[in-house]
C-alpha cells in the first residue's frame, strides 16, 4: 500500500476541515479526491505533504509516517500546488535546477533528468524563457515536470487544472496520464471538476464536509445509482406511476426537469414517456459523477468561477 490513512482529522477551532478519513491507495493508482470547494480536499492533501499536522489520526506515505518521519515523506512526494508556485522572473530550466538542488538530485544526471522532465511536458523549446512569458497551461506543465524531477513515488496534485480553459485542461489530463504511466508514480489529485475525476482517476473518493461519503471507481460509482438516466421537460409530470416501475431506481424533479435513474433507458423510454405525459424536451444519458454527488448530498458540485483564481494570480507578481 503506497498511502494509508487512518482516522485522519484536522480541526480548526470548532470546524472539522477533515473528519476521520480512512484511505488506502495502491502503488500506481491515480486517485481522485472529488468534492466542492471547502470540502477539505486541500487540507487533506496538505497533511499528506506534511505541510499541516493532523489534529488526530495518522497516515503513512511510501511507508513513512507523516507525523514522525516528515523528512522521508517529503523526499517521497512531489507536489503541484493550486496556484502557480514557480518563480516567474527565472526561466523554466532555472526553476527546475533550483528544485533539483533543494531535493538533493545528484550532480551527475541532474542535467539529464531536467532535460528528461522538460521533454515529458514538451517544454524543451521554451526552457530558457522566463516563466513570466508562459501561458497558464505551460506553467502548470512546468510545475508538473518539477513535481516529478526528483523521481518521487507519489505525486500530489492540488486542483491541477484550476482556472485553465477546457481545451488546455484536457491537454493537461493527457500529460498527467502519460506521466503516471511512464514514471510509475502514484497520483493523488484533488478536483471539483467531475469530468476531471471521471476522465483521469482509477478510483475516486467523494468528499463533503471533510468526510469521505463514497469511494469507488468512477464507473462503479455511477453504476450504483443506475446505469442510465432520462431527463425530460414535462409540464405536468405523473410521477407516481413512474416511481412504481420496477426498473426505475430514482426520480427527481428540478425546475420542471424530471430526471429518472433507471436500468436500460433505451428499452424503456417509450413506456416512460407514455406514462409521464407530454414532454417538450427529452434527453437520454449516462449518469455523471455530478449525479452521484447530487444523490449523495442533495446538492451539486458547483464549479468555482475561474476569475476568482485569476485575480489571486494576477495580484501576485509570481515571486
Amino acid at each position, binding site marked *: 500500500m503506497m498511502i494509508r490513512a487512518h482516522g485522519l482529522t484536522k480541526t480548526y477551532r470548532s470546524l472539522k476541515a477533515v473528519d476521520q478519513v480512512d484511505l488506502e491507495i495502491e502503488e500506481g493508482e491515480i486517485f481522485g479526491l472529488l468534492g466542492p470547494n471547502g470540502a477539505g480536499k486541500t487540507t487533506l492533501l496538505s497533511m499528506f505533504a506534511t505541510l499541516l499536522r493532523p489534529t488526530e489520526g495518522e497516515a503513512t506515505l511510501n511507508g513513512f509516517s507523516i507525523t514522525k518521519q516528515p523528512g522521508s515523506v517529503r523526499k517521497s512526494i512531489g*507536489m503541484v500546488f493550486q496556484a502557480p508556485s514557480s518563480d516567474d522572473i527565472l526561466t523554466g530550466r532555472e526553476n527546475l535546477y533550483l528544485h533539483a538542488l533543494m531535493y538533493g538530485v545528484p550532480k551527475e544526471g541532474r542535467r539529464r533528468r531536467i532535460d528528461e522532465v522538460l521533454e515529458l511536458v514538451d517544454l524543451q523549446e521554451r526552457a530558457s524563457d522566463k516563466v513570466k512569458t508562459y501561458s497558464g497551461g505551460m506553467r502548470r506543465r512546468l510545475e508538473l515536470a518539477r513535481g516529478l524531477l526528483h523521481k518521487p513515488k507519489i505525486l500530489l496534485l492540488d486542483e491541477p487544472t484550476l482556472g485553465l480553459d477546457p481545451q488546455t485542461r484536457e491537454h493537461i489530463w493527457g500529460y498527467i496520464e502519460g506521466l503516471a504511466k511512464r514514471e510509475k508514480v502514484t497520483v493523488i489529485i484533488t478536483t471539483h471538476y467531475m469530468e476531471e475525476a471521471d476522465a483521469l482517476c482509477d478510483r475516486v473518493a467523494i468528499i463533503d464536509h471533510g468526510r469521505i461519503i463514497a469511494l469507488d471507481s468512477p464507473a462503479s460509482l455511477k453504476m450504483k445509482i443506475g446505469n442510465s438516466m432520462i431527463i425530460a421537460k414535462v409540464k405536468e409530470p405523473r410521477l407516481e406511476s413512474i416511481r412504481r416501475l420496477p426498473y426505475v431506481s430514482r426520480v427527481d424533479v428540478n425546475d420542471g426537469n424530471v430526471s429518472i435513474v433507471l436500468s436500460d433507458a433505451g428499452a424503456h423510454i417509450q413506456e416512460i414517456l407514455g406514462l409521464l405525459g407530454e414532454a417538450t424536451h427529452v434527453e437520454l444519458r449516462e449518469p455523471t459523477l455530478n449525479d452521484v454527488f447530487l444523490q449523495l448530498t442533495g446538492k451539486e458540485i458547483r464549479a468555482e468561477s475561474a476569475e476568482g483564481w485569476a485575480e489571486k494570480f494576477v495580484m501576485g507578481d509570481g515571486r
Partner: protein
Amino acid sequence: MSELLGLYALWYREVKVFFRERSRIVSSVVNPLIWLIAFGGGLGASISFGGADYQSFIFPGVIMMTTLFSSIFFGMYIVWDKKIDFFKEVLVAPLSRTTLFAGKMLGGCTDALIQSAILIALGPLFGVSYTLFGLGIIAVFIVLIAAGATSLGLAIGAQMSSFEGFGLIQSFVVMPLFFLSGALYPIDSLPLWLKGITYLNPLTYAVDGMRGALLNLNAFPIIFDVGVAAAFVAVLVAIGTIAFQRMN
C-alpha cells in the same frame, strides 16, 4: 550535504532574482545618493564635524541606512512569499526550517553587499577615501547590519499575514533605528536622554565603527563596536530562526 545544496539553491535564487530586478538595484542606490547630495550637500554647506566634510561624515550612516532599509524589507517580503504560493514549493522541500532561514538571510546579506559596493565605489565623489583596512571593516559591518536587519524582517514577516502592519513597522522600528543611530550627527554632544536611547541602538555601534574605519572619528574602540553589533546579530538570528520554526 543535501541541506547545504538546498542552502545554496535558496541563496542562488535570491541573488539571481536580485540581478534580474534592475529597478530594485537602481532605487536602492538612488535613494542614498539623494541623501548624500541633497541632505549632505545642503546641511554640509553650513556645518562640519570633527574636521570632516559633512557629506563624508554621514557617508557611513547612509550606507547603514541603505542596508537597514533594504534588508529589513527584504526580510518582511516573506509575507508576500507566503501569500502567493511560491514559498510553498520551498516549504514542502525536504529542508529544515533553519536552512530556509539561513538561505534567505545569506541572500539578503549578498544583496546588501552588492548595493553597498556600488555606493562605496561612488564614495570618492563625496570626499571619502579608503584604506584596505577601512574597506574590510566596512564590509564586516555591512554583513552584520544586513544579517541582523534581514533576521528582524524575517521574524516580523513570519508572524504577519498581511502587509497591513508595514506602516507601523516603518514608523516604530525602521525610522527610529535609523535616526537614533548617530548616522547624521556625532553622539558625544547629545543631551543625556537622547544619548541613552542612542546607546541602546545596536546600529549606533555599526555607524561608529564604520566612521572610525573611514574617518577616525569613532566614539568607541572599533573592536568594541564589532563586538556589540555581533552580539545583537546573534540574538536576532536566533529570534528569526525560532520564528521560522513556528511559522505555518
